[in-house]
């Protein structure tokens, strides 16, 4: 562990520290935030002051408090979505690789179709049909994002499925589930873990974009994408406050990407 830390490039160390800080803020949001999430504490668009360190928003809610609550809401929704996407994609991919035949064919063609169109377009279409809402948002984004996990899980599992030890397990009569969980999964966990980081970034950016477009979490909840949208008018007056929630999003995704980049570099044993 110590040796691993020593070989980490500075960007990866920075990434780990930032992720840890976000986790602490998200977990202890109720203790850290000076005001409640939806509490109106002052006039609209108050400037930065001692009472409101980052000013107030369109409705007079404390900006700093909402940024802190946003860490919990926005990152939480993105994490749930990524986990769901990962579950769907990994299980479907492993099943396709293990069962083969028409299951593989049907799932692969379905994924091909879903990936033939930019995901944002399909997300917008699905949300307009299903209507807004957190549950719809999570399910739609997770299903569309699981296509990439599916491809990776299927491809890596296919390589393992042709190994002699898998054949041996099949010959001694082990079931599909046993083979997947005991023989295949341990051998493909490294690329899948790195993929989890990448998927989180994608999902997080997608959800932020959707909430920026007004299709994210329902209004009273603090949500970084929607906070940028609601306060965007301030930018034309030369105030950078609306950029802060966007910066929160950017800093987290950059950090995750730094860590993932290092993990991929280590796992690939390097091409360059």
């Amino acid at each position: 562990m110590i040796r691993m830390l020593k070989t980490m490039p500075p960007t990866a160390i920075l990434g780990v520290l930032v992720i840890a800080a976000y986790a602490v803020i998200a977990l202890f949001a109720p203790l850290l935030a000076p005001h409640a999430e939806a509490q109106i504490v002052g006039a609209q668009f108050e400037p930065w002051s001692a009472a409101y360190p980052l000013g107030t928003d369109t409705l007079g809610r404390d900006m700093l408090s909402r940024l802190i609550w946003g860490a919990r809401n926005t990152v939480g929704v993105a994490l749930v979505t990524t986990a769901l996407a990962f579950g769907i994609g990994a299980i479907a991919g492993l099943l396709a690789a293990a069962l083969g035949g028409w299951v593989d064919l049907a799932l692969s063609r379905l994924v091909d179709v879903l990936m033939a169109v930019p995901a944002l377009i399909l997300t917008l279409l699905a949300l307009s049909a299903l209507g807004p809402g957190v549950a719809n948002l999570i399910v739609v984004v997770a299903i569309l994002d699981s296509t990439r996990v599916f491809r990776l899980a299927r491809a890596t599992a296919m390589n393992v499925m042709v190994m002699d030890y898998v054949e041996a397990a099949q010959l001694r009569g082990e079931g599909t589930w046993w083979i997947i969980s005991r023989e295949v999964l341990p051998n493909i966990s490294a690329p899948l873990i790195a993929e989890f980081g990448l998927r989180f970034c994608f999902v997080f950016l997608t959800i932020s974009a959707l909430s920026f477009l007004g299709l994210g979490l329902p209004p009273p909840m603090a949500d970084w994408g929607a906070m940028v949208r609601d306060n965007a008018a301030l930018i034309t007056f030369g105030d950078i406050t609306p950029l802060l929630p966007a910066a929160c999003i950017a800093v987290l995704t950059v950090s995750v990407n730094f860590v993932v980049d290092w993990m991929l570099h280590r796992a690939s044993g390097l091409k360059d």
Partner: protein
Amino acid sequence: MSAAEARRRPILRMIAGRLGIGVFTLFVISVLIFLAVSLLPGDIAQQVLGQSATPETVAAFRRELGLDQPLAWRYLDWVGGVLSGDFGRSLANGRPVADLLAARLGNTLFLAAYAAVIAVPLAVGLGLLAALWRGSWFDRIANVATLSAISFPEFFIAYILMFWLSVRMGWFPSIADPGASPRLAEMLGRAFLPAITLVLVVTAHMMRMTRAAVVNVLGAPYVTMARLKGVSRWRVVTRHALPNALAPIVNVVALNVAWLITGVVIVEVVFVYPGLGQLMVDSVTNRDIPVVQACALIFAAVYILLNLLADVLAIATNPRLLHPR
């Protein structure tokens, strides 16, 4: 059959094959887009008219929308309409969807082409340099910079640019409406901020992938061989590496059209640019489904078409792919 004809034939057959796949994909997507409405949990007529509508009005509205017809018939009717340029009527204001689309499609294509013309040469050039000088300070800075740029939400980049170039410096308008200006220079100036935002987003993705593709080729044994027999560095790149990296680079460019389309939607909203993306987002919020369907279909068709083009180009630049075994 002449020799030249024989040489040209695999390409024609290949193009026909890809075209078939593209048309089929588009067909499946159009079914998906069509079904998005029909699989709604509730009844669209009821939703549009509200809970207070009488059963008679709902029934009349359903008949007007054609909802009393069988599903397959409605699909054929819809596709037939689309093929003849009739996308139905908007639920929000009753205007023909085709009228809403007409002006906006041009604006969006203008913006996307504007961004692509700058981004593609820039990204491919920078990606080549990063691959050539890999490990150098230039490569490291490029790595960190592009990694950061692809991690930024599009609207963050857009607002930063708006803040500096428009609000602080006052060089460009913060609301980008190309209008019906006859002068190209004026249109380019007005659409500069959204275009440059797209360029930044797309260039980062494209440059990373170009670098990876070229690094891959530079690792091939024939490149080492060329170096060992004393061929100059420049010649190795232009004569040995580049022709083989061309196919992956073409693919990279096509792949990035996805980010261009995704980016267009967000950037148009930020800069209040009257394009297809903004229309689509507005219609999603209003649940104006015929308009959403039309926009989704157009975006999907453009995307599939560009991928098809890239496929054909990639195969045409790589003779090995012409004779698959």
